[in-house]
């Protein structure tokens, strides 16, 4: 077994818990049932590492196979990575055969060899193609360094999600990816986050269900308030609260929101705090600010702002229509006419 392969294999097992390692090795498919049964007897990570190393030696497992295990690890812990969305446009050769895992790998490997020394692994998991590209580059001290880029392609939505790639390599990577996937062009979508499932829901328009489609939701929310209210509490703002709940449900729907960690707004507008600081009225210059909303689930958090009295409902379009707009970074500027005035 090569030293590189052994190092990656050891790192992967050390990073996981024992149960997770077994799950990973099971889905890998390069070990027999009997070998997996033997591994289950290992009580510590150290024992598991040496046992797996021995089996890998017996089964003649190489770097390519170990990288497949690394890809499975990334799939299992995809939330540890930050994914950015790219849209593929202009499908070519519609009559061609559907994409095949092995052919896609060979195609990518071929095309990438024009730019880098690299190694590609592809696996089809749950109707998505998971791609791992390991690029070898020479560092300043003439040492070889390896960095990995992961990509997930959803054929039905014509979108691909990529982890961070060095800017020097990104253009080549994008070019190779859209050519190998039979598309004419690839564009960056201003959408990114950790939860791949939510991002794919947003790009495929599955998360765009809102209360407007189901008029009974407003009524449901009314019943929910009544059920949750403590009878000993006299609610003076009941009508206001009901209105806020109805508006919130109308804007966000009753379904759980897709998971995004951040919304970024770049504001290039005039200063709008003029009631407090009227002296700023004379200034016609742009008041540049950047506003970030951050949370484990930012859309759910924004949804609950109105209900808890921290925002006036209905919320502005850019906050309540994020799944429909399919992006989480926005630039807001004043209309040109207004600025010229």
């Amino acid at each position, binding site marked *: 077994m090569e030293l590189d392969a052994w190092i990656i294999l050891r790192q992967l097992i050390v990073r996981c818990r024992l149960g997770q390692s077994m799950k990973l090795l099971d889905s890998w498919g390069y070990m027999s049932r009997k070998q997996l049964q033997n591994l289950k007897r290992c009580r510590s990570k150290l024992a598991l590492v040496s046992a797996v190393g021995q089996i890998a030696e017996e089964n003649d497992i190489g770097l390519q196979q170990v990288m497949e295990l690394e890809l499975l690890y990334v799939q299992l812990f995809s939330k540890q990575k930050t994914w950015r969305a790219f849209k593929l446009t202009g499908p070519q050769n519609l009559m061609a055969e559907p994409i095949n895992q092995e052919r896609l790998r060979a195609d990518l490997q071929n095309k990438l060899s024009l730019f880098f020394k690299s190694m590609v692994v592809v696996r089809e998991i749950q109707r998505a193609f998971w791609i791992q590209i390991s690029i070898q580059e020479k560092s300043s001290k003439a040492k070889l360094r390896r960095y990995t880029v992961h990509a997930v392609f959803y054929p039905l939505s014509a979108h691909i999600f990529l982890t961070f790639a060095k800017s020097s390599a990104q253009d080549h990577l994008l070019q190779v990816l859209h050519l190998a996937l039979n598309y004419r062009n690839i564009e960056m979508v201003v959408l990114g986050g950790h939860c791949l499932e939510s991002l794919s829901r947003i790009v495929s328009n599955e998360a765009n269900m809102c209360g407007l489609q189901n008029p009974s939701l407003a009524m449901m929310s009314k019943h929910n308030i009544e059920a949750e209210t403590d009878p000993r509490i006299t609610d003076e703002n009941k009508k206001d609260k009901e209105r806020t709940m109805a508006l919130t449900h109308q804007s966000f729907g009753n379904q759980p929101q897709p998971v995004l960690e951040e919304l970024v*707004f770049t*504001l290039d*507008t005039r*200063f*709008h*705090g*003029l*009631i*407090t*600081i009227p*002296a*700023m009225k004379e*200034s016609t*210059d742009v*008041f*540049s*600010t*950047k*506003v*970030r*909303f*951050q*949370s*484990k*689930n*930012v859309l*759910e*958090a*924004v949804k*609950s*702002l109105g209900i*808890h*009295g*921290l*925002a*006036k*409902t*209905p*919320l*502005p379009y*850019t*906050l309540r229509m994020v799944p429909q707009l399919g992006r989480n970074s926005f630039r*807001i500027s004043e209309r040109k006419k207004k600025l010229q005035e």
Partner: protein
Amino acid sequence: YFCFLKAMKSLTKKHFHAYRVSPLCMFSYPRLQHYAQMLETFLTAEVKCAGDPTTNSGFHTNISVFPGLATGQRDPEAILIQIFCKQEQKRPAWEGLLCSVEPEPSYLTVCMPFVLLPLLLVHGPKKFTTAWKTWFERTFDCCVSPLVIPSYELAWMAALWAGAMSVPRTLDLQWSSPPPVSDGLHITMSVNRNDALRLWDCVHTSGEEEVGLFKQGLEEHIFHHFHVILDAMILESVSSGVASANNSGHIKVLFHKPLVHILVASSYLLDILIPTKGS
């Protein structure tokens, strides 16, 4: 002067955690060497009791007067406490600065056996802070408790720093939602340096309470765009090209010039705040 400058620069670009300290009983400046020896013995004994194999190499401690911080007429000299691990003698593993920079007059009424050094800035691992605190509280019959900086005071710092920013960096203010909001929401506003300065200049001309207006103006601007009521949230941290601070008492100063002003502001907080639990 160079000594003073070097000492001041040693306090910049470091994350400090601020604490409030009650008056010290029987504290004597000529006995600083003796206190250093006492602390060294205490730490060695603590490590032996805990049986921590990672820190069995022993300590060296240094307690000395820190020059240049006693700016007020009745300010006692600041004290610098340093703990060195014997493996690495050059860099202190833990630093603490006890000072009193122009405190409020109500604090000055302390009887003779007591010395007033109400502000403590700590930089280093928590285990050293805990050990030092135990020794210090026992030795000088005092109480050390964390300093919490409320939203209004943070806004005050942000407004002051907006007017004093010489480095092209944004002025960042971060609000956090109160607990009922699911998953907790943080809203960060980064204002361009020149725009922050322009706003600060406009606030100056109004003649009303400037600091409050600065914060309210920014909140109104956000409300216009997002309908979010930031006033109902907690201002958690502020940072600028001059310094940064958050409400749990973390302070970082980037330049030595505003250091004294920041310490004066922190000393002012000691007087206006209600003592936290344990103080």
